[in-house]
């Protein structure tokens, strides 16, 4: 069962350098041949690229990722929604972002097929070297009443 006391838990800030090679690797994995990613020295990040925060957050140490505090059951947990907001053009390779995540919400809803669903929301803010808020990521996870793969 997810822990609703996790709301407000804030992780330590983590560094996320935006790198050209990583953007090309991500473009390849998402089947993009867009010259904006492949032919520019300082390509912009693709729309879902900030998901790579997981790598930087993991290596920054436990304290950087407040998601652990939610204690969502991994076997009954699923990714429900994900949102990226850019306050202006997307950040480019060569920029070093600083990210910081917080647990914004934990709430429950009755599922359409019965059983209680527990949702948890984590917001990550990304700032550039000048401290300007350039992007936000909003992760919504859900814990179902049954194991997702189980037939009911």
């Amino acid at each position, binding site marked *: 069962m997810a822990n609703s006391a996790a709301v407000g838990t804030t992780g330590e800030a983590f560094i996320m350098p935006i790198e050209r090679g*990583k953007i090309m*690797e*991500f*473009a*390849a*994995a*998402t*089947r*993009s041949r*867009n010259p*904006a*990613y492949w032919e520019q020295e300082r*390509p*912009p990040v*693709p*729309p*879902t690229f900030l*998901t*790579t*925060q*997981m*790598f*930087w957050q*993991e290596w920054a140490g436990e304290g950087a990722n407040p998601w652990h505090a939610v204690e969502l059951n*991994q*076997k009954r947990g*699923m*990714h*429900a*929604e*994900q*949102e*990226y*907001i*850019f306050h*202006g*053009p*997307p950040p480019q390779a060569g920029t070093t972002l600083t990210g910081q995540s917080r647990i914004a919400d934990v709430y429950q809803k009755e599922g359409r097929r019965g059983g209680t669903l527990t949702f948890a929301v984590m917001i990550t803010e990304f700032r550039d070297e000048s401290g300007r808020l350039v992007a936000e990521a909003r992760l919504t996870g859900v814990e179902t009443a049954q*194991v*997702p*793969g*189980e037939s009911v």
Partner: protein
Amino acid sequence: MTKELLTTGLVTTGPPPLVFGPLSRTDIVRYQGASGDMNPLHHDEIFARAAGYDAPLAIGMLGAGLLATYAADWLGADNIRRFRIRFMAQVWPGDTLTCDGTLVREYEGPDGPLADVELACKRQTGEIAVRVWATFAREN
């Protein structure tokens, strides 16, 4: 066209769909490595079975990434302002995914013209696996 859309609420279909598949286990592993999300549910048979699945399932963010590729080619990589993803159905290795979208609204934002699009990534069965609501800046 902007004015027409504003006044009539016309829906405009995007470019031809991006079709990707059949999805291999390697496609999934490549995406996981690139993204940094190494959840074993998407590549580890033993882990997936213990979690109640018959086999490792694809990762939802790969479908979202394909929709991002489609939308960036259509409306411009630098123009992305908002990308909201909802995961609707599970995707499995062997599936063929078809990504397309429609322009639903053009309007004036605080920093210039914006366009809202709705995107869908469908399995070969027609079932929608991933839905996206996105906003792009429009060139003046």
